[in-house]
């Protein structure tokens, strides 16, 4: 990459100090969990300022505070020396601050011009003045140099062109600060080049761009200034000149693994293979192959959107793979849907327990027994006594704390809700468990209990796959780690190679670097 970032380090735009956006001592907590602690950053007008960090480091939270989507608990934001108190994106817009989020906010059925002027149409007596709108649109497009037809329906545009529409909308509101959250995540490489040119031209025209990106090469190529965040705290803000991918990665990690993990008991290298995935292709899963052995904990790391959950869903046949095979205990897995996989001993604990895991309004008892009602029923008739006995047994094993089995799942803490899913899984007596983000939104105590559960399950002969965005967790639990990027497995690390920097390097790399 070294040759590339010379283009990004050329100073550009007039930096009038009066227009700087200054964030001072900003803190933000979500439900008691600190997302940002005492962060101070100055964003200069006409520069490209990158925010980087691991998943959950606080980049998006900071960007949302700058954009007025959420307010800080403490700290101030000043623009040109005046304090800003923004309570909504609309108020931020009044100050010239616009966000272009990961999820595009365009109306697919409207035309390009209609989208650009959405909510700010040139109108007379309630009627949109089309001619006036088009004239304004032409002027705007000429100023920026985009090639977009005003009458094209937004739905028919490529993602990059849709982003252009959003950028035009931002510019039409005279934005002086544009916040971009992962703008190139959904783009092809050709489109990414075009986007980079747009970002540069924005900065040349005096607009400040706050860029959040997981792609370090992109950051180095574009940014003038780079701010690194870790665990909600500011690590440092540096000029992009002289920074390297290595130095940036070093800034993003730099914490020792906590001792909060149970001891690993790696399985024998010749332990029998329980799961063999070969050349699996499915939506957002590209040619993935790996094996899982009896008693092994395999970690799957990667950035959000790298295709980890999609791989898990393809393995259990929730999405139909377009090609490739999955062998469970030597037998090819066929049949439709997760039901077939569960019956054969392959169980997934999905990533979002509220949306994909639990029936939140139903009782603890019903939630645990759902997958194996056949164990507690005769001729399709549920035996409540038998059900209560079995559910109690599995709740004990998984240390679920609930005042009553009749309580709805909503009434349990996040940790106990997660353990309900483990109880349901154990009731299926699986030989392979895939746990997707098993400790998301779980308190520290329950985290440790879940780690113990996963370790115990592996010790007792299950093959366990742990998918997690918390690198620490993957490293602390897994005997072997796969790193995914863009739907592919880009690295396989085992033994002494299972290190944070190696995983990060593979996760952030543009191609399979290990």
């Amino acid at each position, binding site marked *: 990459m070294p040759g590339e970032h010379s283009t990004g380090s050329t100073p550009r735009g007039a930096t009038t100090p009066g227009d700087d956006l200054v964030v001072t001592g900003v803190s933000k907590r979500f439900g008691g969990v600190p997302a940002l602690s005492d962060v101070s950053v100055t964003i200069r007008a006409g520069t490209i300022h990158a925010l980087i960090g691991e998943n959950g480091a606080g980049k998006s939270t900071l960007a949302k505070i700058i954009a007025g989507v959420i307010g800080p608990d403490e700290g101030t934001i000043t623009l040109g020396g005046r304090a800003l108190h923004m309570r909504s994106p609309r108020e931020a817009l009044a100050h010239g601050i616009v966000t272009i989020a990961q999820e595009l906010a365009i109306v697919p059925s409207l035309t390009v011009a209609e989208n650009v002027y959405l909510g700010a149409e040139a109108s007379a007596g309630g009627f949109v003045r089309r001619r006036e709108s088009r004239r304004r649109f032409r002027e705007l497009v000429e100023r920026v140099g985009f090639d977009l037809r005003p009458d094209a329906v937004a739905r028919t545009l490529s993602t990059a062109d849709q982003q252009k529409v959003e950028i035009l909308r931002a510019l039409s509101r005279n934005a002086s600060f544009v916040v971009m959250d992962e703008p190139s995540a959904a783009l092809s490489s050709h489109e990414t080049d075009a986007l980079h040119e747009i970002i540069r031209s924005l900065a040349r025209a005096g607009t400040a761009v706050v860029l959040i990106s997981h792609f370090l090469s992109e950051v180095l190529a574009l940014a003038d200034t780079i701010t690194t965040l870790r665990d909600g705290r500011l690590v440092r803000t540096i000029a992009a000149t002289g920074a390297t991918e290595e130095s940036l990665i070093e800034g993003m990690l730099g914490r020792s693994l906590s001792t909060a993990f149970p001891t690993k008991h790696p399985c024998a290298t010749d332990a029998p293979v329980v799961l063999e995935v070969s050349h699996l292709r499915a939506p957002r899963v590209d040619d993935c192959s790996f094996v899982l052995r009896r008693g092994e904990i395999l970690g799957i790391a990667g950035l959000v959107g790298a295709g980890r959950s999609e791989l898990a869903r393809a393995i259990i046949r929730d999405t139909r793979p377009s090609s490739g095979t999955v062998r469970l205990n030597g037998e090819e897995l066929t049949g439709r849907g997760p039901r077939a996989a*569960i019956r054969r001993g392959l169980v997934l604990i999905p990533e979002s327990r509220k949306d994909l895991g639990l029936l939140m309004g139903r009782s603890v008892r019903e939630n645990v027994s759902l997958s194996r009602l056949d164990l507690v029923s005769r001729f399709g008739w549920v035996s409540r006594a038998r059900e209560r006995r079995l559910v109690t047994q599995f709740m004990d094993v998984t240390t679920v704390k609930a005042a009553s089995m009749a309580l709805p799942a909503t009434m349990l803490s996040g940790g106990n809700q997660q353990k309900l899913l483990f109880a349901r899984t154990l009731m299926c007596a699986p030989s392979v468990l895939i746990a997707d983000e098993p400790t998301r939104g779980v*308190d520290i105590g329950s985290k440790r*209990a879940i780690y113990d559960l996963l370790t115990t399950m592996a010790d007792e002969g299950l093959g366990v796959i742990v998918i997690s965005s918390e690198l620490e967790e993957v490293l602390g639990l897994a005997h072997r780690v796969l790193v995914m990027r863009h739907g592919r497995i880009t690295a396989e690390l085992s033994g002494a190679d299972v290190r944070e920097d190696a995983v990060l390097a593979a996760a952030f790399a543009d191609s399979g670097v290990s």
Partner: protein
Amino acid sequence: MSKTTTDSSELATPPVPPSTPSLAARVHLGQSWRTAGILIPFLILFAVLSISSSAFLHTTNLINILDQQASTLCIAGAGTLVLVAGGIDLSVGSTYAFAGVTAGMVGQHHSLVLAIGAALAVGLVVGLANGVIVSVFKISPLITTLAMSYVIQGIALKVSSGNLILTGTIPGFTTFATAQFLAVPSAVWITAVFVVILALLLSRTNFGRYVVAAGGNAEAARLAGVRVGGIKITTFVLSGLAAALGGVIDASRLGSVIASSGGAALSFTVLAGIVVGGTSIAGGEGSGWRTAIGVLFIALIGNGFDLLGVDPNWQQIVLGLILLVAVGLDMWTRRVRR
């Protein structure tokens, strides 16, 4: 693997913060509200009518109410399953009419058994079509069953040329629903058995659990290994069968049948009964016996207004307001548990 279930009990048990009891109490309040929400008004109405009208508390009147509500109760019992599974069935009114017409026409030339069989076959086919369109082709149940109701009514009118079919003259046909046992007509007995079976199916069987799961969170249910599509189809088939049974009961009970009977009015009455009974229109929650009380509650209002000589137009207004209260109560309990 059974080892896992027994041996890992020595796992570390770190302290876990207990769930907040105040919130739990509030939800239990919400739960009991749902039950009380229909039972208490029903009992109050029953008591008020017993006191204010001398004719109300007569066995004849009460049996009459049950007899008149037999078909509605059957259809609402099955409709509860459809709603709990996250669907809705607006075609029951037309299926009811078509099945009645079929039974009448077949009954004129063939045996009673064949007539009933043909009618039930109609219900089964309609229900299966609804279920497959909803589950396989992923078309909204509201639209599917609305469209189906036009198709079925059209076919029923075509087949019968819109004529009134007299069933009272067919030997033995009327005995199906009007035979007396312990001074109660067979229509009421059939309905009681059918509704009890449906209520138990929902509350006590694996199938019932899957119905609740499919309607409560279809995605989670599927990932837990529930055949959501098959479950939904089954609820529509039961609904179609129930509508056909209702049609046969009334064709037998009333002595005549016409293709323009039932229709949208019946579909909406059934839906009103289910919702007043506290079954959630959003799916994932509901009970068969509460539906029965909901249907009877609406029937009592009608009967009471008749006995007390109140302007029948008030009946509609009151029913509308009660529906709103029932749905409002459902929304409220849902908000409490968020």
